């Protein structure tokens, strides 16, 4: 395996230890109220007693955003390996033309979504 990956892995472990360490140190050092006010454990709702749970159904517009995201993220997955090789003289003009066609089709779809109002936050 490429040794730089091992260094990255060591750093990932280090940042995890650092972050958990902050919480662990705070757990040891923090002050604790002897007789905590029961209101401390209430959910905050501007001073009123909270009504109901917040775990409810929510607006489907978030679903549209998630769908659009998946669409365009997959498209960048196609663009990324192309971006690496397009400067290579061996790939010639074909790589450019192909990507123009691909992005053109994509922009057509984008225009359709725009006209259908899928990009509007309603």
């Amino acid at each position, binding site marked *: 395996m490429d040794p730089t990956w091992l260094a990255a892995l060591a750093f990932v472990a280090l940042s995890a230890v650092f972050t958990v360490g902050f919480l662990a140190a705070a757990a040891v050092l923090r002050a604790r109220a002897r007789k905590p006010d029961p209101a401390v454990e209430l959910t905050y709702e501007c001073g009123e007693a909270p009504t109901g749970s917040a775990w409810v159904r929510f607006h489907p517009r978030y679903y549209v955003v998630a769908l659009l995201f998946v669409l365009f993220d997959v498209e960048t997955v196609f*663009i990324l390996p192309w971006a690496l090789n397009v400067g290579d003289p061996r790939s010639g003009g074909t790589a450019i033309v192909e990507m123009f066609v691909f992005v053109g089709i994509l922009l057509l779809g984008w225009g359709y979504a725009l006209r259908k109002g899928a990009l509007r936050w309603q």
Partner: protein
Amino acid sequence: MSAAMVLDNPWLRGLVIGGGVLGVVLGIVAYAIWFERKFTGLMHQRPGPNVVGWAGLLQPIADVLKLFQKDDRLPAAVDRPLFVLAPVLMLAATMMALAVVPWGWGVVVADLHIGVLFALSITSLAAIPIWMAGWASNNKYALLGGMRAAAQAISYEVPLLLSVTVPVVLAGSFRLGDIVAAQAGGRWFALWPPGPGFFAFVLFYLSSLAEANRIPFDIPEAESELVGGITTEYGGMKFALFYLGEYLHTVVASAIASAAFLGGSDMGPLGDGLHWMLLKTLLLTASVIFVRWSWLRLRADQLMALCWTVFVPGGLVLVMASALWVHLT
């Protein structure tokens, strides 16, 4: 063991250089918060922190010590495992991206051959803890903030990826070290080629502001409508981790922008060095703070419309323009 042997062992390299980088960057973050408060004071025509130490310079240290001592009782209604895990993931995900930042003079924890992708995929993980925090809090403000934040984070992911593809096309490599090397001698991608590079830099900068939830894109914690957004129920060190994560994200994004668009450690005729990279990172971080006190917050619908109708197609056009440039020269 000699210094060279330490740097040859990848594990020790990750821990030694990584520990150094982490220490310096966390110091920068602490003083970025001091600078932000001092600068806010200047904009508001008041002194800002000025009691602890000269010009309030010891304020960040006092704040950290205070946060360690804060009582931290969880509200009874929260989903405990998710509630505790969210701030940890938030900070850790942002920190890990530091691994691939080339600081100059060979100081880099791991110059991965897919460095750009590593940094972006790791920082984009932050969308998950944001949503976790919003849901686990079982608080209506937190839920609204978490939902908006998750939608914003994934939306601005796309222009962020597209904008960073421009230096990848121009340099022909995902390795941040190669991208910096391709800009040697003052041929920074933000300046040359004229056009795509500069606009890609602007796109990256604005999308990073949105990813880090900074004004004008700080809808997730718009305090005038959502109390504290996802951090409403958080207190003590867990709140501090979110706060730290936000500032760290700003610094990390500034560092990546400096390397990918502003030449990294290169300063044209003035030579090459770690100090230039640090200077660029600090200036970009300071500019983010300047933007915060100069612009108004966008509305949630404007925020999404800006991303999907301007940034995404704009990013596609920039990528194609840079590919044409590479092909024709």
